[in-house]
């Protein structure tokens, strides 16, 4: 940068303007990067805000899947998973597990019978500090293809415009597939009778360096019993938590972890698309749930079940959801931990 050759006595306006321009340009680039100049950018704050129910979010609670109950137990690996991933919790052995059964709603007052999707969040820990976190749901596929479409769905379903949902569904035909499932799939009366699916795909890497794109499912050992929705509607609003708390007293509950391996051409980036049924499925172990505890002072409360917290041997794929979920879950965690006083640890159950 050469400075103009001026007598020192004169006020050098040029350099001052130049300095101001340099500083302003960097500040403007910073503002642009922060999204302050792009109101249409989908930020985690915007996504999390969109999930809020009409009365506002339940302070101190997760911003979605707000109703839930903690469990503890262990995962017992049979060793078969090591062929797919070098994750330490796939080596034959037992690994402690903490999880959370939950409902896919942001409304803490929603009655259990009104929520179509149920979920399981899980953390499996291996010696040496490696953990695997996953948050799964019981539908066989996701309602929409992309995080932006999910945001659109949440906005449309909360919209007062009478045609908002119709317009959204018209632009997102994959939603019809999900709608058909939601209409026809049987309901059950227990968290213990549900399968829980990753839906998102991930990349597994074995010790030899071989990679596979996979999705996984925890399949219940408990036989599902279909219950008509109008029967469920007669149950108390928190019947799922009451039921699982009672059921665990008569013995532990089990799920088998099955890894589904994609073949080339399968839609690995789109969780609304199922893979063909004949894909290789590897049973890698069994989850045992031994204890159920209320969330308020339970061990799952402090865990952000961020699906990108993965051990060695697992990574994200071209599926855009895990990154979006990680970003939004972090925002939810930051908010709820700052509001912890609104959700005292002494409260019992999920109702404030």
């Amino acid at each position: 940068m050469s400075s103009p050759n001026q007598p020192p006595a004169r006020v050098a306006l040029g350099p001052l303007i130049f300095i101001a321009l340099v500083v302003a340009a960097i500040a403007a680039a910073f503002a642009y990067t922060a999204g302050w100049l792009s109101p249409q950018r989908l930020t985690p704050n915007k996504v999390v805000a969109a999930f809020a129910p009409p009365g506002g979010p339940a302070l101190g609670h997760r911003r979605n899947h707000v109703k839930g109950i903690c469990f503890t137990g262990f995962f017992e690996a049979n060793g078969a998973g090591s062929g797919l991933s070098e994750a330490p919790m796939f080596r034959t052995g037992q690994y402690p597990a903490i999880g959370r059964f939950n409902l896919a709603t942001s409304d803490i007052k929603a009655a259990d019978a009104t929520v179509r999707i149920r979920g399981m969040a899980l953390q499996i820990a291996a010696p040496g500090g490696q953990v695997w976190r996953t948050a799964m749901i019981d539908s066989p596929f996701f309602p929409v293809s992309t995080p932006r479409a999910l945001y659109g769905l949440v906005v449309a379903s909360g919209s007062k415009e009478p045609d908002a949902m119709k317009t959204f569904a018209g632009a997102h035909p994959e939603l019809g597939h999900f709608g058909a499932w939601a209409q026809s799939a049987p309901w059950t009366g227990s968290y213990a009778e549900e399968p829980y699916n990753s839906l998102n795909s991930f990349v597994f890497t074995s010790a030899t360096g071989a990679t596979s794109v996979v999705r996984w499912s925890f399949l219940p050992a408990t036989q599902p019993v279909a219950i008509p929705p109008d029967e469920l509607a007669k149950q108390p609003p928190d019947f799922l938590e009451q039921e699982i708390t009672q059921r665990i007293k008569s013995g532990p509950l089990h799920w088998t972890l099955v890894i589904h391996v994609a073949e080339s051409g399968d839609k690995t980036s789109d969780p609304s698309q199922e893979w063909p049924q004949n894909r290789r499925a590897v049973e890698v172990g069994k989850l045992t749930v031994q204890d159920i505890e209320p969330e308020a002072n339970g061990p799952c409360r402090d865990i952000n079940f961020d699906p990108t917290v993965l051990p060695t041997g697992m990574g994200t794929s071209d599926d855009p959801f895990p990154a979006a979920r990680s970003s939004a879950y972090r925002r939810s965690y930051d908010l709820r931990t700052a509001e912890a006083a609104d959700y005292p640890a002494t409260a019992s159950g999920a109702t404030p």
Partner: protein
Amino acid sequence: MIRITQRFKPVQRALHWLMAACILAMFFIGVGMVSTIAPKYLPLIATHKWLGSIILVLAVVRLAVRWHYGAPPLPADLPAPMKLAAELSHYVLYFLMIVMPLLGWGMLSAANYPVVLAGGVHLPMLLPQSDSLHTTLWNAHFYLAFLFFAIVLLHLAAALFHALVRHDGVFEAMAPVSRRDS
């Protein structure tokens, strides 16, 4: 106008410019990653973590080097308020270079996120999980980041002022290469 001729040692200049690039990148990565849900969120946050660790190590080394070699004196005719601002801002810069990575690391620990750097390096947890600690550290990391950025801009403006307006050798003392001028 008095013109100083003493310069910082080559190792000091190398550390300064290397860290300048790292720290400037950190501001943009930090503010960019918290405002996106796109797939780039994950590499941005991973980069923010390992760059933060590198800055922490470099800052400690740099502080030791500075303590050993000192700094060239400011021009004797520099107005007292500018001298004070220069000295104070450098204390704040050193403080932030060391404290910001520690706050980030502590914040992740208090949130019970495993702190894993690129290459699978696990950092130990600095703190136990705690909602209140997490919130305090999060707020400190967030607000100090904006203060840090503002001071870096001020530092840059001052450096250019020395170089282009005062021509007093202060910029040249830290310039990466010695400039043959006038």
